[in-house]
């Protein structure tokens, strides 16, 4: 067990290092940060002096070493654009991203599961067909387009919901801000959550439908029916329970994806989270923010994978067989 855990941990560390190296070399091609930090009339000498102060003239290996050794202590340096410590900036933006991601995941589950069950149980009904075609839209339309479509329908035409921002937020503790406690905050969550969660909703719905169709054909369901159990019990206690195993795994992994890839949704809705900050950093060649974001994302995925690996170890007895 300990051997398995340490091997996995070692692999995780290597993955993180590779991501860091990749990210770091990639920044060479994003452009010159100095130009984004000064006005156009700033003299060449001043630009050079700034470059020197930032250590951008050092050899890449030196820069990489400096970056890694600081990052290991959670010091990601100072943002070029904002001139504030990157870790502080992230701390301020994390609540917005997490609240949005959680709401989207909940939306995907609460809407996706019943739709999937219905479509699985009544595969021929017109409503199921409607669900399926709607879900096709969710998969095939790009996120930013769905977002803009929703904005024009619900903000511009109907004027029900806000088109941008988080609404009013409430401060909880020293650094967490929440939009869950105000009316405008909740209203502001609706459109971005739907936009962000639509893809996952589709995924969950189709997954459940397919699993349902499969499970219903199995012997124990037939047996349950033969026992004369009411449909409700057969469908929800016996069938649904067994479809949920893969769904839970997928949802867990997708949560990481939602958090990491909220960038587009956050940009369309000017949602003040990490993804928006990352995209702006790319435009302005704000290397400290970009590298921190990529590392954070990699860490998220590596951590989730590591936990899943460890869980499998406990769930699946086959992994333990033959190992001391």
């Amino acid at each position, binding site marked *: 067990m300990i051997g398995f855990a340490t091997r996995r941990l070692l692999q995780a560390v290597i993955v993180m290092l590779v991501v860091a190296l990749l990210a770091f070399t990639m920044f060479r091609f994003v452009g010159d940060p100095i130009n*984004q930090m000064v*006005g156009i009339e700033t003299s060449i000498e001043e630009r050079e002096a700034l470059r020197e102060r930032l250590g951008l003239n050092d050899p890449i290996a030196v820069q990489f070493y400096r970056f890694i050794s600081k990052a290991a202590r959670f010091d990601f340096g100072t943002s070029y654009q*904002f001139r504030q410590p990157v870790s502080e900036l992230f701390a301020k933006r994390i609540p917005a991203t997490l609240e949005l991601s959680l709401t989207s995941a909940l939306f995907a589950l609460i809407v996706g599961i019943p739709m999937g069950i219905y479509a699985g149980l009544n595969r021929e009904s017109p409503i199921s067909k409607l669900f399926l075609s709607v879900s096709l839209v969710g998969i095939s339309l790009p996120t930013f387009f769905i977002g*803009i479509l929703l904005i*024009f329908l619900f903000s*511009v035409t109907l004027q029900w919901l806000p088109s941008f921002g988080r609404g009013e937020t409430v401060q909880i503790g020293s650094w967490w801000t929440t939009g869950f406690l105000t009316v405008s905050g909740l209203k502001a969550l609706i459109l971005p959550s739907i936009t962000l969660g639509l893809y996952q909703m589709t995924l969950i719905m189709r997954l459940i439908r397919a699993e349902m169709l499969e499970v219903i054909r199995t012997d124990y369901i037939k047996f349950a029916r033969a026992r004369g159990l009411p449909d409700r019990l057969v469908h929800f206690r016996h069938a649904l329970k067994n479809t949920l195993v893969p769904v839970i795994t997928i949802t867990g992994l997708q949560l990481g994806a939602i958090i990491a890839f909220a960038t587009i949704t956050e940009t369309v809705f000017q949602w003040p989270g990490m993804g928006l900050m990352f995209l702006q950093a790319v435009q302005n060649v704000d290397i400290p923010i970009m590298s921190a974001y990529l590392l954070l994302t990699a860490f998220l995925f590596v951590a989730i994978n590591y936990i899943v690996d460890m869980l499998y170890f406990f769930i699946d007895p086959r992994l333990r067989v033959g190992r001391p």
Partner: protein
Amino acid sequence: MKTKSIVAAAALLTAGAGSAVQAETLKFAFQGTLNNLDPYTLNETFTLSSLGNVYEGLTRRGSDLAIEPALAERWEIVEPNRWRFYLRKDVKFHNGNDFTAEDVAFSVERVQSEGSDLTTRVPADAKVEIVDDHTVDFVLSGPNPILHYEWDTFYIMDKEWTVENDAVKVTSASDSTANFAALNANGTGPFKVDSHEAGVKTVYAKNDGWWDTPTHNLDTVEFTPISSDATRVAALLSGELDMVYPIPVQDIKRINDNAGTVALTGPELRTIFLGMDQMRDELLYSDVKGKNPFKDAKVRKAFYQAIDIEGIKKKVMRDLSTPSAIMISPFLFSKAGAFERYPYDPDAAKALLAEAGYADGFTVGMDCPNDRYVNDEAICQAVAAMLARIGVKVDLNAQPKAKYFAKVLASGNFDTSFYLLGWTPGSLDSWNVLSNLMNCRDEAGTGSPFNLGGFCDEKIDSLTKEILVEVDPEKRDGLIENAYQISHDNAYYVPLHQQGLAWGVADNVELVQRADNQFKFRFVTKN
């Protein structure tokens, strides 16, 4: 536009007399973020425009961009090299501190210190002498008629406050902790910063202790950056915001058609132009080997005449541009009317090319930004198509500004053969254009650092030196005209147009759209 602001002022005068206090909030969005509240960290229009509502300079510019007294009541040139500024009395900073000559001397020192991006606001060899609490002398090494031209954006800080909060050093990107002045502001202006979260939201509140009589009726101003064009426009159309800028030219009609919103358009001061490498003996990106076609004035003129500027205006800019014959906005130069573009004439252009020995044309690589100026990439594509008609094949390399500037500026060794650039003189004066774009430079960029093509004309250089010290306005304008004439005759540049400003405004908001694209809350009234 001017009539609009006068109407607004008149309306305010009649309404202001007896009206009850009504809390008005202006909500607006801009495409970029306000990164920092330190007024010396970034020499960029939006930052300076925003902070100009909070901080003030010794001078300010009115709705027509004319220089007005602000923190200095008046000034005079007592000796050719000595300027005396009489400071306004009874001015208080937002924290209640008095504004005195000490603050001016301190601000000059700070703006010239390491890390400041506005060091050019005050000549490096200028000395500040405090005469008394409300009189300051600037002693220069030579006459300088435009000393105060950029002082509307050289904001005066409170010495006591800055020292107290340990913010004397200008926030530098290499610092590991945030500077107090980067997150807080203490100016003398009509608005205070109520709260500021960089990249998320900034809230301004009216400064009741402002020395001037407010013509605005705002109590609160909320700024949100919205980077997505579609979202910004949607937020205006839905009535959530009172004002957004800039708006894409293709959305102007939509905003005008919508009840309750209007698109305000007008010429901006920025001149968009084409430049050519005239320094290297062989172009970096061309099939012409062993010589540089752009060294021949005929080729440059051929390029000039091949461009259908009216076509660009109609098709690319949707009429939101003013074709230009010189390298500065006609607003900023009294004799601009004397210049006229070489007419669009592809046949004449072809003949010129043939005369220069390129009857079959040639291939040249062109660099272009795609996120810096209004429709920049589309302009470049149009230019490439027009040049194709005279046999010149253009390989267009359009990329984001971060990559584009890294390539074409001095830091990239001027790695370009043919490029599109825009320029607004920060001082709103021609000397800035001449010294940045039209003087000779060496390979490292010493001289005119933004003369990317590196052409060199001794006559323009000597005229630039004369213009710097000439104090007689009439004579000075004559010299400037000569310099522009030389550039025009030789087609050193191909000026294209002044790009347009487009702001989206709710009908119940009256404001002034200044040609320098600065948005000043003190000109706003909301009904």
